[in-house]
């Protein structure tokens, strides 16, 4: 289904069109991996909400991406607990292994890396999200194994 139609269908579930904005943005993001201006325009016209309003909301939340992303998004926590448990060396490791800088994307477009503040898994630090999958107790050893699962 075209995202326009999909978003239209979504509005049925919400009392007003504004309520459907966050899920609509997810739909658009899933479609292209990120939210381009054109994608925001599509969301705005599908929901009949002003473009500027859509942009304001989309840029407020960090889960929406405003530049092209790799096929898989690694969200690695480096906040206190994860840092103590060695998250920073994982950052260096990813740089060495895949040439992946925080905020960057690998040359082949496979991974993007975003550094997160606490993702609520301090008891199993260090932790990360790959796309929507959660992984914990990371080490240099298992992180490669995990990532190799994602093409």
């Amino acid at each position, binding site marked *: 289904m075209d995202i326009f139609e999909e978003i239209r269908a979504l509005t049925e579930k919400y009392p007003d069109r504004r309520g459907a904005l966050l899920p609509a943005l997810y739909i658009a993001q899933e479609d292209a991996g990120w939210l381009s*201006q054109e994608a925001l325009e599509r969301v705005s016209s599908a929901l009949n909400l*002003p473009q*500027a*309003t859509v942009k*304001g909301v989309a*840029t*407020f939340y960090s889960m929406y991406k405003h530049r092209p992303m790799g096929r898989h998004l690694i969200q690695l926590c480096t906040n206190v607990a994860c840092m103590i448990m060695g998250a920073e060396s994982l950052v260096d490791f990813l740089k060495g292994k895949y040439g992946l800088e925080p905020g960057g994307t690998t040359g082949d477009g496979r991974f993007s890396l975003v550094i997160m503040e606490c993702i609520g898994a301090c008891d199993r630090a260090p932790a990360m999200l790959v796309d929507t999958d959660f992984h914990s107790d990371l080490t240099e050893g298992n992180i490669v194994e995990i990532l190799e699962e994602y093409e």
Partner: protein
Amino acid sequence: MIKVTIDGRDVELENPVTVLEAAKQAGIIIPTLCYFEGLTPFGGCRLCLVEVEKLPKLQTSCTLMTADGMVVRTETDQIKAARRSVLEFLLINHPLDCPFCDKAGECDLQDLVARYGPEAGRFAEGKRRHPESFDDPIIVRNMERCVLCTRCVRMCNDLQASYSISVTGRGSHSFVEPFSGGKYNCEYCGNCLTVCPVGAIMSRLHRHTYRPWFVEKEIETVCGFCGVGCSMVLQMRENSIIRAIPRAEVGFNKGLLCVRGRFGYEYVESEAQLTTPLMRVDGELKQVSWEEAITFIARRLKEIKDAFGGRAIGAIASGRCTNEDNYMLQKFIRFVIGSNNIDSSARNYYAPAETYLESIFGQGITANLISGIANSDGVLVVGGDPTAINPILGLQIRASWRSGGKVIALGAPGGLKRFVAYELMPTPYSEEIVLSAIVGRLLKGKALSGENTAVEAKLRSLRIPSDEDMEVTGISPEDIARASDDLAGMATSVVVIGPDIIQRERASKNLFLLGAIAYLINARIFLLSERPNYQGVMDMGCLPDFLPGGRPVELEMFRHKIEDALGMKAPEDRGLTLFEMINEAETGGLKALYVMGENPLFNIPDSARVKKALGNLELLVVQDIHLTETAGIADVVLPATAWPEKEGTFTNLERRVQRVRKARRGKLASYGRDDWKIIADIAERFGMTRKYHRVEDVWEEIMHVSALHAGLGYEDIADGKAVWPYSGEPLRGMEGDFSVEGLEDLPHVQDSEKPYLMIERSLYHSGTFSRRSKALLSIYPEPYLMINPVLSERLGLAEGEKARISNERGVLELKVKLNKDVPDGQVLLSNTFEGFGAMGLIGFSTGPVIGSLYIRDNTVRVEKVLV
């Protein structure tokens, strides 16, 4: 009754208001930053903190409602410390580039820091950076200075309802941006500029050319662009306009202006302004003295009058000139020259429509308060986009929608797109059928009230279209039913009528139908007015058939009254309308034409024909501020003063009389003379004895002569209370005598293979003046042809490509812009660019019943220009 104590003062309140409001009533001003009167309270800046007994924490007074027995303190040490901290936080990222900022001196942040501190901040890290944006020609934004009060966003969303900007990002990376991130691409009303408390959104027009304390005087006047008549203040330094700004407490526009009003004034300082009279010598316009020009005009007019009679002379009045100017022209032509040939471009639609509606319902039927539209529960819009023709009236319709009013548009809704419940988009020229069907449905099962028997008699013989008749319109019977039922359900409704439904065949029928709808649902009627003073032109008697005060010239009783008041005589029979004058010029019946502040060569269709007709005249006098197309072919051109250089009055479309005041004077003002003064000088050569020294003298006479304006002094007008019917006497008992074209049949709508060329009414331009305003030109710099994407595909014409449009009248080549709101079968062109007027390709005649402009033969061939 609510009793509260604020800083020891007892305040009694009828209704609960916020603590901030209550304090203000008690004369206590609490500092604020995100609060702005008229905008929804936000409670975000926390400067308005106050202590309230029994409440543990400091409270934001802009959001806290008063309750009985409340004890409030507004300036304790604790509050001061809190304010200081809030400001310290704001200054963490504020660049403090005050020496370089145009806002310094009227900046709320600067003033607050001066009052509460801190002297120094404790934050040692660097400030955020965000480059200043110069993407826009007239607005510059510096988001480093932004304090995130969101006043601009609330203004743009809640009052302007343009929804063009938002706070983007978050935390210290929040900036107010338009969708594009660069250009605003908005309506450029500049109302966000008014509310920004700091120098984050500023005008580029006067960037770094002034400081707020350079303003030497402020002149309260009304806008000279359209018939809404917004109040504004011109801030002057010497003779230059520094800014045109609104004042929330002055005028019914309550602090709002549109792009033309706020940014369009520059034309008055344009170098193209005429400085001396010009006279045609050996085929060329040469500079001459005032004495020479006036002597020549008086002599030639006398010769023509002696040879051919007064009726061989005519005059065109101006919707851009004041009542006083128009009155004087009328007096001169009618009572001195002896001709009723006086009219104006109000003839295109405004004057005939109003006269016709008044002949049905009585004088003053269109005199309704603009500010009432916002409170109405339904609006029917027909014949034009109010947000472009009369922007601030358009905002009222948006406001009605916001508070739940049902807005229905017949035709493209333009700037009301987001604000209509739905639109009915009939095929070109089939609106009459749709309106007849709506009336038919409204009549069904409804007993007529018997209030207006003439209307009801006509309604009984109205042909109601069958479902089959409706097919050609493209509107389904269900849509008609829905629209009619919605209209019938409205309790306080409004019908807004624009030019496009009038400037066509069978205009009387369209107007009758709209009047009938208003009659049946008890709606107030508004007639959109493209010029600031079309109403004044009419009320001053610049019509071939009406004297000042809207008294019919052919009725002896009225004529004699005015003749007695003036001690002068006017001809008994009605004169020629604008179009009749052009016809007569063409055939040689009209010998001389005196044109004041109007440009018929540009504003009337079929320019080639108009040019030829005017070329036939023995004498063409043009009085204007620029050398317009028409002035270019005149025998004598007289430089007049521009809008901010004269004193007088305008009458807006709700018939409110308002004062226009002189802001520029002395040697830097233009060299023109006031229009009324020039004409009075010429009239004196004809032996008119009455002397006018000041504009007040002219108004005195108007009060004396026009039954409508009796007793309405300049002082009353200045109070803003000059609202219809003033204290004068509206004309009663003349209504009920009218005829309607084609009551018993339906128009024959034929499919045209070629699209119709229609006039685009742009928000950014409205005619001869706006095209000389650098600011407005920077927003909309060149004309383009607006076409529907369907047509564009058919022709293989993409956005930005060049199209050629042609018909037997001429050829134009210009860029294409796609707009899916343009109906298929039409193309739109703005008539506001030198050499690119839409009117040149349009043919016209006049409507037989009401005499409005009747646009015809306006199909064009559209093709792609191959490069």
